């Protein structure tokens, strides 16, 4: 089925995106002081993380990069390209939506929009590397690990986050961090693409609590 997860015609794109949709504000906007990590910084961080992955994993053929959408997807793809470049390794990339595993679903009024899951190969005996854009409370990673276990029994799970902003509420450790960014609990930290929808040059922006809210 060709169109499994595409919206019906182009019209669904105009459907209102829920507030937590990370690309909901991807409208082009000049990089400003709120940018805490620019495209060059992101590319450097991902190259360094690729080297760290090679260093810490003896058998790269076991690696399986699993992106947490939406922000994790372009990052995981770039990491896979980097691993090809630095270690000549072909690493599978999957996408795992954690929405249905969230622990706050039933407390909310409206249900968040679902995102796609595409797991092209089995996880059994693989070393799964979860790739997320921003590590915060640890709840998303917890949800991703639960989801992952429904797909099989990985040999190990490691976590990449482009940005670690702290405020962990669960005992979750991030194995590979692009950049540590101190934040206040109410701040918003987002990965955005200049061309919208995480396309084009990427950047991470930080908006203090109350700013840029819509």
């Amino acid at each position, binding site marked *: 089925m060709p169109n499994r*997860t595409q919206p*019906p015609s182009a*019209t669904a794109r105009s*459907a209102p995106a829920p507030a937590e949709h990370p690309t909901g504000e991807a409208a082009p906007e000049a990089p400003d002081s709120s940018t805490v990590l620019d495209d060059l910084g992101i590319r450097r961080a991902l190259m360094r993380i690729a080297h760290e992955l090679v260093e810490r994993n003896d058998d790269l053929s076991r690696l399986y990069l699993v992106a947490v959408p939406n922000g994790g997807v372009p990052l995981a793809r770039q990491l896979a390209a980097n691993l090809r470049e630095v270690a000549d390794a072909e690493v599978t990339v999957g996408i795992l939506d954690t929405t249905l*595993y969230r622990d706050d679903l039933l407390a909310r009024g409206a249900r968040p929009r679902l995102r796609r*899951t595409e797991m092209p190969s089995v996880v059994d005996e693989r070393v799964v590397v979860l790739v997320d854009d921003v590590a915060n409370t640890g709840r998303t990673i917890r949800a991703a690990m639960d989801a992952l276990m429904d797909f099989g029994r990985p040999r190990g799970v490691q976590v990449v986050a482009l940005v670690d902003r702290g405020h962990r509420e669960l005992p979750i450790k991030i194995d590979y961090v692009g950049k540590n960014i101190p934040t206040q609990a109410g701040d918003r930290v987002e990965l955005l693409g200049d061309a919208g929808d995480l396309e084009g040059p990427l950047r991470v922006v930080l908006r203090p609590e109350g700013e840029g809210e819509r």
Partner: protein
Amino acid sequence: MIATDLLGIEDLERSDIEQILEAAAHMQEIGDRPVKKVPTLRGRTIVNLFFEPSTRTRTSFEIAGKRLSADVVNFSTSSSSLSKAESILDTARTLDAMQPDAVVVRHRVAGVPKRIADVLDAPVINAGDGAHEHPTQALLDLLTVWQEKGRIDGLTVTIIGDIVHSRVARSNIYGFLKMGAEVRVAGPPTMLPVGVQALGVKAFTSMREALDGADVVMALRIQLERLSGSLFPSIREYAETFGISRRTLRYAKDDAIVMHPGPVNRGVELSHDLADHRPSVILDQVRNGVALRMAVLYLLAGRERVAGRTE
């Protein structure tokens, strides 16, 4: 954002339909997993309240609820006090006191799900009421067409059969029109509702005209028990005139798909060879039914009831 209950397609906006279809498309992948279950509705209770026998729809809702980890309880006429002349609303109130998080209702009388929704705190999902609506069937049909054709807007959809008595036809007419398709209905004159054109539908008694250029050919189940009446002379005559076969399908587009809500009276609405193979997508409809109902339960179950529409 869709309202608290799902009582009919007539009440929905196009954006509501799109939201449900998009969520359903994401739910499909869960059925292909080694563990076909997500924890989303863990600890939630869904009651299937069926005043009219139904195996397919009830099972589909039951599997949908279980794949979301809800506890699903079936109340049906044969296994409850419904046969003891307890009033429908008393039954609903009794159920409500057990604090379900969603109630799925089927009844042979139109409007009963609405009456029940008025007294219940839990969201009510209409699983078919009389000749009124069967919204989840229409939504799964829309999902199937969207994925087969890549769009719904601009398609020509022909619905054939007993349009007057069909809640499936009614919900599909609303659904396909809202999504921008051209809708035609065809059948013996006694089975075409008076004034159906007022909805924006074209009515035909000639299959050749009805199917000309159709992208989607949807046959409805003929209720054989109605045959004793005067709606049409015989099964054979109906099958010859309005049955879908490779011969009548020639009038439709080359890539037209054939749909049926099931169960099929083989050799009546559909010829034997069409019931099982492409271009018929009947089993895709069934598969999509589970994902679609998961989407509806995800969006509605456990939502707090508020006046009017939410968000």
